[in-house]
């Protein structure tokens, strides 16, 4: 266990984003399943996703997936190269830097049609 610090934040964020993405996945399986009930039903329901609130929500989803992916690489690297473990904090800062670098342009492109 940690007594605070970068490693603990990395770990808590990994869990929270993981649960969040799984929750969305379950909803997304159900909404996509509506294609089996025909065009009218499906189109009426997925239209909800075009609401501005959901457009912002999908940026949050993208953020969660991106963080979870980048920190997942960090965890896997540390698993297979234990000699890196003294550098786990720097690796976390690398994750944060890469996240910001990829997320900002992505969020801009996703939200641009709203304005």
């Amino acid at each position: 266990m940690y007594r605070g610090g970068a490693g603990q934040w990395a770990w808590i964020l990994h869990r929270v984003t993981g649960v969040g993405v799984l929750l969305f996945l379950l909803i997304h399986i159900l909404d996509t399943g509506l294609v089996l009930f025909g065009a009218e039903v499906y189109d009426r329901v997925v239209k909800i996703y075009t609401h501005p609130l959901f457009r912002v929500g999908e940026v949050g989803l993208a953020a969660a997936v991106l963080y979870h992916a980048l920190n997942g690489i960090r965890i896997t690297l540390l698993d297979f190269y234990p000699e890196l473990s003294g550098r786990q904090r720097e690796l976390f800062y690398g994750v944060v830097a890469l996240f910001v670098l990829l997320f900002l342009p992505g969020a801009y492109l996703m939200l641009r049609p709203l304005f």
Partner: protein
Amino acid sequence: MAELSEAGGRPRPTGGLELYAWVFMRVSGLLLLFLALGHLAIMHLIHSVEEVNFAFVAERWANPLWRLYDWLLLMLALLHGFNGLRVMVDDYIRSAAWRVASLVSLYGLTFLFLVIGSLVVLIFQPMAGG
């Protein structure tokens, strides 16, 4: 609380099913990195939710390769996600009765969503539905 490696990952289990689960999380995670981020880029950067409707899905799934892509993403994401939850049940739920109840519902839900998801991706026929 399970002990954590320095990185916050679980230490590699020594053998058995737990070792398979540990390896699966790393391998599926790496594949999901491309499949899930690819899916997000295709749906939200190249296309947008404005375009997604029945006709869009029908056209996309007319190509079996997209069905395969979506099915693979679905299977790996579900198993990866539910195995993550299983680890969290191990970590946080103390009482034996609640552990059994949560694990049973977890396995039930995993099976249910694997079946629903696979059915949707594999049997959808736009002509019959539209």
